[in-house]
């Protein structure tokens, strides 16, 4: 599915809606270039999940944890050189846990992520603030999300 978001407000609205639909165990994969808006989208998904704290970029820390309706694990694998480093971080314990995982640059570690996931590829539009989201997925809250977006 493809959706066009014309500005930051629409992006926030989408993120909050998505966040409110998610359940424990869901995995959201975010892909897109530097500056595409992966952290920005994560902020609003977090709001939809009931996270009150500031959600900041996890690029340096690799994983930030927040408390919402469910534990929220915000990953950024930008700095990882290879998939082996994932084992050193104990990523599997997060992926198969009870929280919601949001993974920036997920395509770098595509093979390590469980099949049940929602994938959002963010593309810049014609305008500086326009974004086109390509959404695909399998299992978890995916079907419910598509149903909700089609309304």
């Amino acid at each position: 599915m493809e959706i066009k978001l014309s500005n930051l407000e629409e992006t926030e609205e989408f993120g909050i809606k998505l966040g409110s639909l998610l359940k424990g165990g869901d995995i959201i994969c975010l892909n897109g270039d530097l500056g595409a808006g992966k952290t920005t989208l994560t902020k609003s998904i977090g709001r939809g999940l009931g996270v009150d704290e500031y959600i900041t970029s996890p690029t340096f820390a690799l994983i930030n944890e927040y408390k919402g309706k469910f534990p929220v694990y915000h990953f950024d694998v930008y700095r990882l050189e290879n998939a082996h480093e994932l084992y050193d971080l104990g990523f599997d314990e997060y992926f198969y846990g009870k929280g919601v995982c949001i993974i920036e640059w997920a395509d770098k570690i595509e093979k390590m992520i469980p099949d049940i996931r929602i994938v959002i590829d963010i593309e810049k539009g014609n305008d500086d603030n326009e974004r086109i989201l390509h959404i695909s997925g399998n299992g978890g809250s995916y079907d419910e999300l598509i149903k909700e977006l089609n309304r």
Partner: protein
Amino acid sequence: MLTLAIETSCDETSSAVIKDGREVLSNIISSQIEIHRKFGGVVPEIASRKHIECINQIIQESLDEAKIGFKDIDLISVTRGPGLVGALLVGLSTAKALAYGLNIPIIGVNHIEGHVCANYIDHKDLKPPFTCLIVSGGHSYLVQVNSYVDYELVGRTRDDAAGEAFDKVARALGLPYPGGPFIDKLAKQGNKDSIEFPRVFLDDKTYDFSFSGLKTAVLNYLNQEKQKGNEIIVEDVAASFQQAVLDVLVGKSFRLAKSRKSDKIVIAGGVAANEGLRNMMEKKGKMEGIKIYYPSKILCTDNAAMIGAAGYFQYINGNESDLGVSVNPNLDIN
């Protein structure tokens, strides 16, 4: 009083021996020694389980360099957050085992407060109160330090850390990682007024920072110039971007210092090594009658010496942890 300090909050495994909170007897940092010789080619780059492989070696090396043994240590100081939970656990568990085995006190300290305390090592005369800007790849904080143990969090980033903005812009310019030092170097040869990038001050009421929009503005600029077929002058982009970051960092630091009537501004963290930041702070400090402090470059990075200093000042002010102390990946400054 001798403190053995351990830091494992992110990528670096580090151990140090500190005398009376301000004197470094040793400060071993995993990335700085030829550890690959000892570990068959494996350099522990990315946190967590890799810390286990080298922590004992690093601690032993810190004792050897300080020319002391375990029995000479009076206090164990260890980072308990913020950071990666798995990485922090390696350091804290090791520290607990040592404290229990040696029957000496243990203190769990805040990594961010450690960065502040790095300044006590390099500036023997520095005493609180002061205004402190802590900026690194993972953190951006403005803190009013009221005493050795009273840190008042006044501002923080709402998105990207300052150092992260440097690294990501560097990446877009095709510079190696970590990019901060390269931007700093190129900025000296460029014209800082050549490109108008946004200064995100947010509003006057907050001391918070935001660098994500600036990063995106630089990326958009590079994209547009490429589409127009214009040549990109890397030095000018570096200089203009760096100036946009520094205007905000320096501006907010001085605004806080003046509102609290501080006569000292202290900078800490990896970005405190940025020469552009140091120069601008000092220049403005001279004009405003505010003295500027920053640590030597090695103490700007993640290191255990600063954790030793932080633990010492906590301990002599009556704070102590017990063996039940736990890690907190989201530990805040209180």
